[in-house]
C-alpha cells in the first residue's frame, strides 16, 4: 500500500493500549505507523504536520453511528457522515443494520462499503441483521454476511420478541464466531413510551419507559448468552442497574461487554423540560442516579466503551409535539469533546477516557485499530485539547443538527485526522 510519507512533529502522543503518554514525533508511511520517537533511517516526509500543543491519539472508533444511507438520504448520507466523522477525529464508524433495505444480504453490505470507499473519508463498518428484515422471525445467512465483511450481528433497535428465534440466532452467530450486539429493550414494557418512567414523565403526562424495560431484556439476554455461549456486546445502556447485572455476569465468566452513549453520561430526564424534542431519545434520558451510576461504571470499568449513538435527522423530524417527533440525536461532532470532558471532570484519566473510544471498542469488534504500535494502520486523531468552541449550526459537520448540546461550550477539537495514513481531515484545508 502506498500513501504519503508524513512526519507529525511535536505533539503529546497518547496510545492507551500500549501505555504510552509522552511527547513523541510520529512518522507515517505506506498507510502505517513507521516510527515513534525516533525517525526511521532515511525518512523524507512528503508532508509535515506541526502538532505542538496538541494531542496525537488513535483515531476514534464509534460503535454505533447511523449514516442513514441507504434508505433515508434526505436525513444524511454515507458521504456526509463519514466526512463529519473525519472532522471529529473518528476514523471508524459502525453502522447498525436498520438501513432500508436492511443489512441482511451481502448485496447491501457491498453497497454500503462501496459508497464508503467512494466517499474516501472515515472507515465505515457494518453490523449484519440478526434476523431477516429485522423482523425477529428467521435468522439471516450470517456466514455469507461475514464473508461480505460485517463485523458482528445485531437486530438494531428492534428487539427479537420470540425467545426461541433469539436463542437460535445466538447459536448460529456463535457457530460462525460472530459477536452479537444487543440494545436491550423488552418491547412489551417500553411500548408507546418516549421518556423515562418516573415523576417527571408523570408530571408531563408523557408515556414512560420503565427501567425494567432494559433490565428485563438484559436478564433474558444474559440467560441466552450463557446457554448458547455466544460472544455478546450490550449497546447503549441507559440504566445503572443493567450495567451492574452485566458486570456480575462477566464476573461469573460470561463473554459480555457493554457500552454507553456519551450523552447518557451528561443528560438526564430533566433536560426534557419544556418538551425539548432534541432530548427525545431511545433509550430515554434517565434519572440523575442513573447518569451518576453510569459514570461510576465507566470509571470502574464495568462499562467498557463509549459511543455516540449518532442518529442524524432533518429539521422537520423534530418539529412536532414531543411524542410525535423522531427519537435520536446527532452525535458525531460532540463525541470527542464530551469524552475529553470526562477527564476534565475527573471521571477518567485522559488516557483512560481516550481508551473508551479507541482501543476498547476496537477490541470489542476484534479489530487491530484503536492503537498505534509500529506497523499498525495509521488511523490517527490529532486534536487541540485547549480549543474552545460552541455547538451551533455552523460548527456541526454532520448533516443532522438535532443535538441537545446546541449552545454548549466544548473543549477539544480535532485538527487532523488520518485514516490508513491518508489525511481525511485537516483544519488547514477548510
Amino acid at each position, binding site marked *: 500500500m502506498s500513501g504519503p510519507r508524513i512526519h507529525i512533529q511535536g505533539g503529546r502522543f497518547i496510545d492507551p493500549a500500549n501505555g504510552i503518554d509522552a511527547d513523541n514525533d510520529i512518522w507515517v508511511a505506506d498507510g502505517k505507523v513507521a516510527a515513534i520517537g525516533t525517525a526511521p533511517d532515511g525518512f523524507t516526509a512528503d508532508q509535515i504536520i506541526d502538532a505542538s500543543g496538541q494531542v496525537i491519539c488513535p483515531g476514534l472508533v464509534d460503535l454505533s453511528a447511523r449514516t442513514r444511507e441507504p434508505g433515508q438520504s434526505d436525513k444524511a448520507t454515507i458521504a456526509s457522515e463519514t466526512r463529519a466523522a473525519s472532522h471529529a477525529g473518528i476514523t471508524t464508524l459502525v453502522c447498525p443494520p436498520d438501513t432500508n433495505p436492511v443489512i441482511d444480504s451481502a448485496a447491501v453490505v457491498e453497497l454500503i462499503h462501496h459508497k464508503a470507499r467512494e466517499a474516501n473519508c472515515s472507515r465505515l463498518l457494518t453490523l449484519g441483521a440478526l434476523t431477516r428484515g429485522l423482523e425477529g422471525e428467521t435468522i439471516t445467512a450470517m456466514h455469507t454476511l461475514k464473508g461480505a465483511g460485517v463485523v458482528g450481528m445485531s437486530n438494531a433497535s428492534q428487539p427479537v420478541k420470540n425467545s426461541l428465534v433469539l436463542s437460535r440466532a445466538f447459536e448460529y452467530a456463535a457457530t460462525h464466531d460472530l459477536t452479537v450486539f444487543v440494545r436491550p429493550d423488552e418491547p412489551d414494557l417500553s411500548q408507546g413510551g418516549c421518556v423515562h*418512567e*418516573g*415523576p*417527571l*414523565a*408523570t*408530571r*408531563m*403526562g*408523557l*408515556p*414512560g419507559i*420503565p427501567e425494567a424495560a432494559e433490565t428485563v431484556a438484559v436478564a433474558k439476554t444474559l440467560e441466552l448468552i450463557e446457554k448458547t455461549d455466544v460472544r455478546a456486546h450490550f449497546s447503549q445502556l441507559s440504566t445503572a442497574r443493567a450495567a451492574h447485572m452485566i458486570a456480575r455476569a462477566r464476573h461469573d465468566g460470561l463473554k459480555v461487554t457493554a457500552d454507553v452513549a456519551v450523552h447518557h453520561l451528561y443528560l438526564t430526564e430533566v433536560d426534557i*423540560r*419544556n*418538551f*425539548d*424534542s*432534541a432530548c427525545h431519545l431511545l433509550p430515554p434520558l434517565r434519572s440523575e442516579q442513573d447518569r451518576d451510576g453510569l459514570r461510576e461504571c465507566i470509571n470502574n470499568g464495568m462499562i467498557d466503551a463509549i459511543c455516540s449513538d449518532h442518529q442524524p435527522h432533518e429539521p*422537520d423530524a423534530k*418539529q*412536532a*409535539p*414531543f*411524542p*410525535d417527533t423522531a427519537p435520536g440525536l446527532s452525535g458525531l461532532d460532540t463525541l470527542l469533546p464530551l469524552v475529553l470532558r470526562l477527564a476534565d471532570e475527573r471521571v477518567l484519566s485522559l488516557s483512560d477516557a481516550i481508551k473508551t473510544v479507541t482501543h476498547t471498542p476496537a477490541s470489542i469488534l476484534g479489530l487491530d485499530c484503536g492503537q498505534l504500535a509500529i506497523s499498525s494502520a495509521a488511523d490517527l486523531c490529532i486534536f487541540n485539547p485547549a*480549543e*474552545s*468552541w*460552541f455547538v*451551533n*449550526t*455552523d*460548527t456541526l459537520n454532520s448533516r443532522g443538527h438535532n443535538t441537545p448540546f*446546541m*449552545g*454548549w*461550550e466544548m473543549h477539544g*477539537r480535532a*485538527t487532523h485526522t488520518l485514516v490508513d495514513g491518508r489525511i481525511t481531515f485537516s*483544519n488547514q484545508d*477548510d
Partner: protein
Amino acid sequence: MSTETQAPSQPPVRIKPGNIQLDPNGKLRHFIAIEGLPKTVLQEILDTAESFASAQDQREKKFELLKGHTIANLFFEPSTRTRTTFELAAKRLSADVLNINISASSSSKGETLLDMLRNLEAMHVDMFVVRHGSSGAAHFIANNVAPHVSVINAGDGSHEHPTQAMLDMFTIRQHKPDFPSLRVAIVGDLMHSRVARSQIHALNTLGVGELRVIGPQTLLPAGIEKMGVQVYQDIEAGIRDVDVIIMLRLQRERMNGAFIPSQGEYFRLYGMTEKRLALAKPDAIVMHPGPINRGVEMDSAVADGPHSVILEQVSNGIAVRMAAMAMAMRNLDGSSAA
C-alpha cells in the same frame, strides 16, 4: 471556516426556559398549563370568570371584548362538551369562531402541523384553542406561532387541561371558598388524566389543605406522590372526611383487562355510591369532568343527587373559558400596543 481562532460568537439557540405562558409583565399570554402559573394569575382567572358568570343570568349575555378577533378551535381529538363551551365562550365575547376538526385522514394528507398553523396565521387568526392527543402539543404550538397569536390548551395528551381545572376550581370556590381548610380527593384513572394533573397543580397553587389521590396501582403513575398528593389505594380510607370528591372518567379502552380486570370489579372497588359518599363530610360536593360512565365511576343516585355539582361545572365552563380568552387576548393586545 477557520477553527484556530474561532470566536465564541453565537449565543445558544434553544427553546428558552422560563414561562412561555406569561408576558414580561407576568400577565397571561398563552394558557397552556396550570403548572408554572402563580396564584395571582389563577385568582385573576377566577375573579374574571365571576364577573362573566354573573352576566350569564341576564338576557344580554354578550360582551364586545373580542369583537374583530378570530379564534380557531383546532381539535385533533373528538370533543363535544369542551369544543361547544369554547365556541359559546368565544361568541359571547363577540369573536369570530372557526371550528376545525382534524381527523386522522386529513393529517394523513401529509400537511404538517406547522404548515397548518402557518396557513391559519395567514388568515389572520388571533387565537388557537387546541386539543391534541400528544402531550406537549400546546407547548409546541405556542413555541411556533407568530408573536400576535395566543394559544389556549383544550387538552394535550395526558399532560394538562387547564381550563377544565379552572372551571373545577371555580365550582369549588362557589361552594367552599376557603381552600386552605379543604380536604380534596381525586379518584380513578390518574395515569391517563390530563384533567387530574391540571387539578393537582391548581389545588396546590391555591393552597388546598390536603390533596389525596385514590386508585389501583395500575392507574396511578410512577412518582405521583412527588406532585404533592397523598396516595390511597383504598377508597374508603381515602374519602373519609373530605370536602370535595373529584371522580375521573375511565376510558372504555382501559377497562376489561388492560388496566383493570372489569367494569364490575372497578365499580365495586372505586365506584362512588351513596354509602361511600356518607364517609365524606356531610356537605361534601361530588364532581366529574364528564362524560360520566354511570355504573362504572359512579351510581346515578350520586351523579344526580344533592351532593353532585356536575351540571354547574358545565355552565361554569363557559365563564371560565371566556375569562381565559379575554385575559390572554387583552394582554396580547396591550403588549402589541405598547
